[in-house]
């Protein structure tokens, strides 16, 4: 399965008529690059393309049986991971759910280490013991890859607690899907984060489906950001397909966390272009092909590409080159993972307990 459709980012997109009705209100910011430099915009594009091409390789590897288990692709949501990671510091913390490849890449874990993990190899970022849903990396303060919906939201609050305990000024970013707002752990964590002034930024990636259940069928009030009010917390809702909107919103939340020591709840409106996991049909069961195609018009990579193209700062040739580089990095990750040794059998028994004390 591949998202290599006729709307690949490298193709020239139709120029938007200024009079055209806006799509999700995103075009209102059409001329606002959020204070970014052209160089930074290229970096953002490169990051998003890197995730896309990497995950297309994941789909291919899954089909060939090189990746096993559950494999949840992030394709369509890359503006969020890229936008958020571009606004935080290396000493900040990131924790996420099981759809974690994009965030791990955007955070700076090497594509080789991630692909090796997906292939179940010793060189993987979790040494082959975690797999797709449990990517971890101490070097980048990437606290996982968690597989129980909502279970890691209190853990994020605990990281925030530790920051406060040490009087640090880091933040903890916590990603989860919109379906997690209905689970108790979410509410327990938000309550304490606000009560105790913990520097945590809770990001709801609202891709509108919890597995195959549409938000309209699961959630009494679809305005999920409003749940912040129940906990006396700042809440915002932004277009998650627009990397500049993501960045602006995160900038405000980071400042609130660092200076006021206050948490924020942010809904990022997005859409997943693939199925829930690799075993799930892309469309046809719980959503229509038409709906999918309509949403793919707002491919976050396409949105950014078009704006850079319209601003005259990116030629088609440059875009092709960047895309080829992204593909080459993904292929290199595959080659590396494929050639890497499996974990030695005696590692079955290591890392169950630490033999250290304090």
């Amino acid at each position: 399965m591949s998202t290599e459709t006729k709307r690949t980012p490298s193709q020239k997109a139709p120029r938007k008529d200024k009079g055209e009705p806006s799509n999700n209100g995103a075009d209102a910011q059409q001329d606002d690059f959020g204070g970014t430099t052209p160089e930074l915009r290229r970096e953002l594009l490169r990051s998003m393309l890197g995730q896309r091409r990497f995950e297309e390789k994941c789909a291919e590897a899954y089909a060939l049986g090189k990746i096993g288990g559950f494999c949840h692709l992030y394709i369509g949501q890359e503006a969020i991971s890229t936008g958020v990671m571009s606004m935080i510091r290396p000493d900040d913390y990131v924790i996420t759910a099981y759809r974690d490849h994009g965030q791990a890449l955007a955070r700076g874990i090497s594509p080789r280490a991630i692909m090796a993990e997906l292939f179940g190899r010793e060189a993987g970022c979790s040494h082959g013991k975690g797999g797709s849903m449990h990517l971890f990396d101490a070097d980048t303060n990437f606290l996982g890859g968690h597989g129980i919906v909502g279970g890691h939201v209190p853990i994020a609050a605990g990281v925030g607690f530790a920051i406060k305990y040490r009087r640090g000024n880091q933040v903890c970013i916590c990603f989860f899907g919109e379906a997690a707002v209905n689970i108790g752990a979410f509410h327990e964590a938000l309550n304490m984060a606000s009560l105790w002034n913990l520097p945590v930024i809770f990001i709801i990636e609202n891709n509108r489906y919890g597995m195959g259940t549409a938000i309209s069928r699961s959630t009494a009030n679809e305005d999920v950001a409003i749940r912040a009010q129940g906990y006396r917390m700042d809440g915002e809702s932004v277009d998650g397909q627009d990397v500049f909107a993501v960045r602006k919103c995160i900038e405000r939340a980071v400042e609130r966390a660092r200076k006021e020591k206050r948490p924020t709840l942010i809904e990022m409106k997005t859409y997943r272009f693939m199925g829930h996991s690799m075993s799930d049909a892309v469309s046809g069961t719980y959503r229509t092909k038409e709906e999918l195609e309509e949403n793919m018009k707002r491919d976050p990579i396409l949105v950014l590409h078009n704006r850079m193209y319209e601003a005259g700062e990116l030629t088609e040739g440059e875009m092709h080159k960047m895309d080829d580089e992204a593909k080459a990095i993904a292929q290199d990750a595959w080659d590396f993972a494929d050639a890497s040794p499996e974990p030695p059998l005696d590692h079955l028994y290591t890392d169950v307990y630490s033999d250290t004390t304090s």
Partner: protein
Amino acid sequence: MAVLTYRDALTQALREELQRDDRVFLMGEEVAQYNGAYKVSKGLLDEFGPMRIVDTPITELGFAGIGVGAAMVGLRPIVEFMTWNFALLALDEVVNAAAKTFYMSGGQFKIPMVFRGPNGAALQLAAQHSQAWESWLAHIPGLKVLTPGTPADAKGLLKSAIRDDNPVVFLEGEMLYNTKGEVPEEEYLTPIGVAELKREGDHCSLITHGKMVLVAMRVADDLAKEGINIDVVDLRTVRPMDVEAISRSVQKTNRAVVLEEGWEICGMGSQVVDFIQRECFDDLDSPVLRVHQEDVPMPYAKNLERAAKPDAGKTVAAIKKVMYLD
């Protein structure tokens, strides 16, 4: 040696470790201003302040997860559950997060924390408040499960638990808090995973842990009057379990009874019996018997509750049976 209550021994352990390491903090319902639902944290708020002795809302899953997150980035939380019955709500964080993160991350993230609180039945608290959870928790690789039965072990094991770099489940007993025992004056640590032979005799091994240690000692006293001398093997830690201590005793006495507070099916005793049949098959002179709670939810009525619980009488009967004396 000083004579202390089990409660005061725990408080001493908490105080000493809070003084020793400023990464250690205590969190739970009513632990600070109220001084602890069972007064184990009495005086600690005054000494260490509200950042280290933290009252939480009634939100077991939430604050257990907060503990895991804090531990992941280097603090050493002690999470108190008012009782382990309430901790059932927090088990996702204990089992899926605390126990597995070190493994899932390929050894990158340790979870040095303690989950503690009273376990098992008290008096007439009925079905939802009278349950012993050790076999549930001991089932999980990644957790250590400690069940001290005496003040000295309570103090020494809690200090070891706090210093351990793994998630440790620490099971206390509501009915134990007021019990007294000798506790060394000087600093000491009780090693995790080492049983103690609390009474020595040649006729039968009585293997037990936690609150049932007191029952076992009474049984040993009663039987001694009849000329029957038993080993009382206090496991102290049910995961990891000291299989060698069990084997040593059974190889000497050739008979064993396993006494526990929880239910029969998949109880801790099942595991002990499994170790015995593997390690001591040729040493046994009779089948191993188990004494445990009757296979019913705990009733409220005094007479029914008494009948449901394991006790000295049932244990004496089991020992006489394995000795073919009944």
